[in-house]
């Protein structure tokens, strides 16, 4: 962390959003009522009023000209906040699953320097099938984290720089590929149990069709196998 960050780190929030008009407003309002951090919504070329609602709710909106997927949108937000001189970035979903009330639990270890990345975990939200998929992904990738697909995360500046790199642009999802990249850069990852709500509106961007799930699983398993570290696995639980 930088010298300025050790005094008072600049924290920004990134929300990747695709057709989240029904929930994005309340997510931003809840965040803004609890914290004074600027909220950046990256609109992944939505077909509804996500961008307008986010703007009205007081967020800054980065509109993508073409759909890049959840990770492409998140990376845009990270690149933007890095460019603006922020030290810490929080990422969370725009569908209301993540409780802004738990944010301080994730922020604290990152700001204290106890870890480089904090991941909000909630394995209870998963069905048995998803847990099996996770187990396969963890086995092939060597990751020992509890919740590898959670989008509720806090990254410090080192992690932001790592993820803003062009080589991270080729990733399709914000899970195994991103975590392995951080791990291979020697960054510390920490699991922190948090409460998550059931998705209020819309469907998962991955788990909405068997074909998409199959492709996702196959891609992730190959990625995990090809990029796994040969040494001891990293990642710890709080």
């Amino acid at each position, binding site marked *: 962390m930088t010298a300025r960050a050790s005094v008072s780190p600049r924290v920004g929030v990134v929300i990747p959003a695709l057709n989240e008009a029904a929930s994005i407003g309340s997510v931003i309002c809840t965040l803004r009522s609890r914290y004074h951090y600027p909220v950046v919504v990256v609109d992944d070329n939505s077909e509804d009023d996500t961008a307008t609602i986010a703007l009205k709710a007081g967020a800054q909106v980065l509109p*993508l000209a073409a759909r890049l997927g959840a990770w*492409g949108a998140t990376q845009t937000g990270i690149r*933007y906040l890095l460019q603006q001189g922020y030290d810490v970035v929080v990422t969370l979903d725009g569908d209301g699953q993540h409780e802004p009330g738990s944010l301080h639990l994730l922020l604290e270890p990152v700001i204290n320097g106890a870890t480089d990345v904090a991941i909000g975990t909630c394995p209870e939200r998963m069905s048995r099938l998803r847990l099996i998929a996770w187990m396969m992904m963890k086995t092939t990738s060597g990751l020992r984290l509890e919740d590898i697909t959670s989008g509720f995360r806090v990254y410090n500046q080192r992690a932001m720089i790592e993820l803003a790199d062009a080589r991270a642009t080729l990733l399709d999802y914000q899970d195994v590929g991103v975590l392995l990249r951080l791990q291979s850069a020697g960054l510390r990852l920490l699991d922190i149990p948090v409460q998550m709500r059931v998705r209020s509106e819309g469907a998962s961007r991955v788990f909405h069709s068997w074909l998409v799930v199959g492709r996702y699983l196959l891609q992730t398993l190959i990625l995990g196998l090809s990029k796994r570290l040969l040494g001891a696995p990293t990642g710890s639980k709080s």
Partner: protein
Amino acid sequence: MIFWISAVVGLLVAATILFLIRRDKLHVRHGVFWLLLAFAFAGLGFAPTLVDWLARVLGVGYPPVLAIVAIIAVLVIKILMMDIDQAHQEVQLQRLIQRVAMLEGSLQQRTRIDQQRAQSEHMRVNNDDNHSAP
């Protein structure tokens, strides 16, 4: 007869490549590979004994198979290179889309700050006018 067909096909492909480059439908960088391949194809037709000799050296019983396998291998490598190139272009395109969004965000923020500044300036001028009025 097959060797003549091979020679004609090779020359036809070469002519098509040159035509596509001339019409700006194909980048010359990609054209070089296809031209070389077409000439190699034509060369096999004009010098069939070359394949027979090479097949004998490598111990291949049926010489045309050697030519087919070699061409398939070259095409597989080419397709792989095209995928690598496509991945590179995809990254560039995504970075560009991200950059446009970031610039738009910065512009929005700058406009908002300018509007707020203009508004506060307007209020200050109004207040000054009210105070200076008799």
